[in-house]
């Protein structure tokens, strides 16, 4: 459990930021999710994939937290990433910021579901786990991922 917490917490935190949850709330959410996991295990719940469970519960919890945030408070990871860039090398910093803006612009064209599938896939989740997290079938996960990649690929291959 301790090992899972150490290995997974940053990944889940990052995923929650991509959902639009603010950093303090995201961190709280991650810790809460692990406490819930501990409680569930202590109560004897059988959990097949602990990592998948953590992401599924964090996803639902994160959406609830985000729903409580008003529209202007939605966390924008791309925007925050620009603010967080180190200021040591101003020119490179500017370029990085622009680059990230463009990259995010490319991903912006994806539907919410495509983005979530893509991010969860990049976090190393398997399709059935992603499906369980998002409430869709594993084959729908595959189709969402394929279409997301196709759209991003168009940008690259053009």
């Amino acid at each position, binding site marked *: *459990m301790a090992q899972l917490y150490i290995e997974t*917490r*940053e990944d889940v*935190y990052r995923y929650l*930021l991509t959902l639009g949850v603010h*950093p*303090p709330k995201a*961190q709280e959410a991650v*810790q809460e999710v*692990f*406490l819930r996991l*501990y409680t569930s295990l*202590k*109560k004897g719940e059988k959990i097949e994939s602990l990592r998948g469970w953590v992401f599924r519960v964090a996803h639902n919890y994160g959406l609830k937290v985000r729903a409580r945030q008003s529209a*202007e*408070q939605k966390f924008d*990871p*791309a925007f*925050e*990433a*620009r*603010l*967080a860039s180190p200021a040591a090398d101003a020119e490179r910093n500017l*370029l*990085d910021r*622009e*680059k*990230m*803006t*463009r*990259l995010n*612009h*490319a991903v912006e*064209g994806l*539907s919410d*579901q495509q983005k979530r599938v*893509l991010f969860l*896939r*990049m976090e*190393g989740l*398997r*399709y*059935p786990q992603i499906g369980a997290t998002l409430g*869709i*079938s*594993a*084959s*729908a996960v*595959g189709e*969402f*991922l*394929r*279409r997301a*990649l196709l*759209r*991003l690929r168009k*940008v*690259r*291959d*053009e």
Partner: protein
Amino acid sequence: MNSLLARHPERDLVRYLDGEMPARKSAKVARHLESCGRCRAELETWKESLAECARYQHELAARMPETPQPWRDLYRDFSRIDESLANPSLLVRLTRPLVHSGAPRWAFATGLAALIVLLSLNQLRQAPSVQAASILRKAVAISESHPRAAHRIRVRTSHQQEFTRMAGAQAAVLAVAEAQAVSALFQAAHYDWDDPLSARAFQQWRDQQVHKTDEVTTVSNPQLPSWAYTQIKTTSPEGEIESATLTLNQGDYQPLEEVLEFRDHEWVELSEISEGDIAGGTLGRHVDIPVRAAEPPSRPAALSPESSASISDELQVLSALSAIEADLGDPVEVSLAGGKVKVIGGDGISPRRQDQIRASVAEIPHVEVEFAPPSPAAAPPETGATIAGTASAAPVSPLETRLEKQLGGHAELDRFSTQVLDLDEAAMQRVYALRRLAEKFSPQEEAQLRAQDRNALDELSRKHAAVLAEKVSGMERILLPTLTSLGGTVASVHPAGHTAWQPAAQDIYRSARRVEVLVSQMLGMTQGNASSNALPSDLMAALQELQGNLDDCQKFLQAR
């Protein structure tokens, strides 16, 4: 011959790469790949796409903010959980007698409801101050990361005095009498007069107030749905200032206006004067420039075309990029800044495409083209094509089953899905392009354009609208008969009553997104709240709304 070997498994290659295919099917794809160069090449392309996504995620992760606090040691909490599991909580112990003692259920429910109301009231009472603090923190962070050059603000007071002053990085020292009087007022109230119209000054003053009350409101312009403002009003029973109201642009958190009401019924109003409205100069004692907070700041339209880039050049660039369809999905941004039209391309644009983009704008003056350098090659993610997948069979929704039956089988459903999704994707590209133009050129800005620039903008917008209309008609042709056969009916949709093509373009975006969501629900790609019985009618209504918004938009675009 086996069907998998007979056809190219293009749609299955990502699942194959991810090892998400049942072992038997995966083996068949592997056999096909051995003998098919085309699919092997396709597989390599998917691998590259996945690697690129991994790089993107890596970069995004590196730039995301660190956790605000060190991670908590959860062991203490684990002990607490252990204890609480061993000893039920007070609430459980309190409610247990109620539940088991035969006490009326309504008493329990009433108590619980009262508790919820109390908690909700407490949360509501705290929400505006938390919200105000959060917005101010964000606005201050932006102003610190992007310090503004010296800029002009207009100052009006309850004594009908009005003057402009410089503020920001090179704020001038004011010597005029009225400015000195206002300066004294601010100093007495402990409000920063060096940069008074700023989130930082407001935050500093607000932080000094112990018993403050906050109100946060969002102000939107019904004519321009894309422009909205956030207003923070802080009232305090102590100090010289009774209330201060700061209006921030919701998009970039730039302060636009501020009103300070003093306890002796005096007030001071500060408002931003946009650069485009002023032809240089330093401090003026009185500048009669109407500044309305409900309008977006204008862009530098008045720059001389001979010496620096103008909106005409920007429109030329937009047209040139549109001619090579670089406005349909390429991560390319065009902006007018520093006397140049800047074309900035993001990561992922191939060298060949970069050359095309450069060539398309080579003849236009004052253009700077810049592309992000390619990311260092990253190892592809662990995809393990040999992993035997255990993907579960997809649960099929009742609507999907009906759809499959209606269309005549799985292959027909597959073809139908591909057609609809391809049309939807092409339509969405135009929707995004049209929306970007609507956001870039508000009706007010458009009214200031020269005739030839307006024609160029019209041409661009009309082109996107026309292709979108074609794609939407295609979707209707395919979808409507099927939706009708599934029990869908057409409801009457009230016209939105747009006043310009820009708001219509925003509504096109909203209705097109609705269509996109409903289509993916219908095809079983996502779950939604709509029941499968209602979905055909909902989708028909969404399509009709999209068509209505599009008609409105085209009507405005063609009427000139």
